[in-house]
């Protein structure tokens, strides 16, 4: 059989930047309840994100990777997943993670330099944040294989950046997903930059979605700043995977409005005018415009949501700052199911020289 290998260059879009409807959205993709849910989740993500950056600036948090301007991707994907699905996130995916139940405090604890931040109370099966770029795609393939083998109706979802699609792990994992025919969705967060490297220096392919063709999986492009289109596409891909239809690669087009991380200074390599223009496309104002036009949102709603989010973030920060430090023993506690007897000496040495002073950041 010769597969259909055409991938439209134009991304799917339901909302214009001013919030006007465009394209031909199915009714369920623009349902008021869904739109409000996505809006709440994006605003919550941004409230958390900007606080985390501020905490880093005041020395209370380690390096942090902001998702400013890319909230629709994480939220669209997260809202399309079911609890029993599994997420293999990168370091910029707190939008999806918060929706899936990871607490803000857990994420702060992680970026604050404490391993307990990866021990999510919910969802228990999701992978921890993946820092080595590209490597987690293969984990998602393996998880999806496990679901298929057991006849479990779960889907594995991995999120990766545009730069990450240059790695060998990305190609080989996607290829394996095609061969194994597993329930997988890979979302490429194409925020146009891999630190200072523009997408044009990452690939000469016409689009990143085209990388799906060689792997024999479905590929498509979506406006990643349009939460409604993003959710719609993610939802369709996840349900296709769930019903045995195989893997999909989604290229979600967005723009990284912040620095790469708090350790980066994007003004060194980026034209501020381009960033300013990109900011006019951002996802939260876009959906707010739509909701307002439809009479589903007003200034009072906005003020109330702002207050609620600020309070939640404050509580999370307090809990984070009040988290007691781990003892030296935490280095050894979870290395093996049981500490090998031969490591007792090292444990005792660590105890002998243990000092407090486990500070924030």
């Amino acid at each position: 059989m010769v597969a259909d290998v055409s991938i439209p260059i134009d991304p799917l879009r339901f909302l214009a930047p001013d919030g006007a409807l465009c394209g031909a959205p199915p009714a369920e993709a623009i349902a008021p309840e869904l739109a409000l849910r996505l809006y709440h989740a994006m605003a919550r993500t941004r409230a958390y994100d900007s606080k985390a950056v501020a905490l880093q600036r005041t020395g209370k948090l380690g390096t942090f990777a902001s998702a400013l301007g890319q909230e629709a991707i994480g939220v669209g994907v997260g809202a399309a997943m079911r609890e029993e699905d599994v997420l293999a996130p990168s370091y910029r995916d707190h939008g999806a993670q918060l929706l899936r139940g990871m607490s803000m405090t857990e994420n702060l604890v992680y970026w604050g330099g404490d391993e307990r931040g990866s021990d999510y109370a919910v969802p228990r099966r999701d992978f921890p944040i993946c820092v080595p770029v590209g490597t987690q795609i293969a984990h998602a393939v393996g998880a999806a294989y496990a679901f298929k083998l057991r006849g479990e109706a779960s889907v594995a979802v991995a999120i990766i950046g545009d730069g990450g699609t240059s790695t060998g792990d990305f190609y080989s994992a996607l290829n394996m997903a095609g061969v194994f025919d597993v329930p997988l969705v890979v979302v490429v967060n194409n925020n146009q930059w891999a630190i200072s490297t523009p997408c044009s220096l990452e690939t000469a392919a016409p689009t990143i979605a085209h990388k799906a063709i060689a792997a024999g999986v479905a590929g498509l492009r979506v406006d990643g700043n349009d939460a409604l289109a993003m959710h719609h596409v993610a939802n369709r891909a996840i349900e296709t995977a769930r019903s045995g239809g195989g893997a999909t690669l989604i290229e979600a087009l967005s723009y990284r409005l912040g620095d790469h991380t708090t350790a980066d200074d994007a003004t060194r390599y980026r034209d501020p005018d381009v960033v300013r223009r990109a900011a006019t496309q951002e996802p939260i104002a876009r959906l707010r415009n739509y909701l307002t036009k439809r009479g589903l949102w007003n200034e009072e709603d906005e003020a109330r949501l702002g207050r609620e989010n600020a309070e939640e973030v404050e509580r999370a920060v307090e809990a984070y700052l009040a988290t007691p430090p781990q003892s030296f023993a935490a280095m050894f506690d979870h290395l093996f199911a049981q500490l090998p007897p031969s490591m007792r000496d090292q444990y005792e040495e660590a105890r002998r020289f243990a000092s407090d002073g486990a500070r924030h950041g």
Partner: protein
Amino acid sequence: MAELTLVEAVNRALAHELEHDSAVLLLGEDIGVNGGVFRATLGLQQRFGCERVIDTPLAEAAIAGAAIGMAAMGLKPVVEIQFSGFLYPAMDQLINHASRLRHRTRGRLTCPMVLRAPNGGGIHAPEHHSESPEAMLAHVPGLRVVIPSSPSRAYGLLLAAIRDPDPVVFLEPTRLYRLFKQEVADDGEALPLDACFISREGRDATLVAWGGMLHEALAAADRLAEDGIDCEVIDVATLKPLDGETILRSVEKTGRCVIVQEAARTSGFGAEIAALLAERALYFLLAPVKRVTGYDVVIPLARLEHQYLPSVDRIAAAVRETMEASA
């Protein structure tokens, strides 16, 4: 002479070689406009152009593999890997190809490349940014592994690495990048590879260290000197091939040795030095050789990192134990 930080010294050495040898070129992620995440290549793309200072796609295996191809065809590529924790994808290329090309082709093709990477912990970096994989690399036949401990050694050793006809892994201690400045003459003078440096002379015990740990060892030596214990401190500098003679001569003089490494203990490079002493210095030893190392655990995130890294306290205590064992 200019006062330079270690990272500035790296930059000067790279600029010097780009200037004087048209075969030299640099490649890596974000090394161009951005000058690298630590700014080691700052200004070099502006000065030498995009064809000699190349921003690559995010793909360590391909970067290392392409460098091998360039080197085999007469170029002298200097690769930057952003952190040593991200050079693992390049290991296949280093182990299976870079290290063996000369050998496999009986010298017909060679691989004069340098792979630079920031190495080690102590800067409160995120997960996977504090690795110390030097022993894994030193285990590979055919690879040179060099770790500078100061701006002037970084300058001189990097020049030597670039001029060396074989593959060199050059690991730069992140902790030292901006820790202190030193006068460095930008005169194109290389330092010898495959040689240890004696950083401090002493009678009572030999401290052996490399990279960031050299400074903990020197600080421990200062502290011990207050109690009348006189330590010799050796900077290993090139781990592989190891200059065992300098270490042996020192231990024959002092009779005591404490090896300091920040990597995990088991199969670390300190074990190699301890084995050398067991084989060739046993009858000179007044006390058992001791190692002060990281523990055999995953390098902790920032908050527990200080519990993991060998401290001046731990090093000084080990030297005291060695003194007592032979009192």
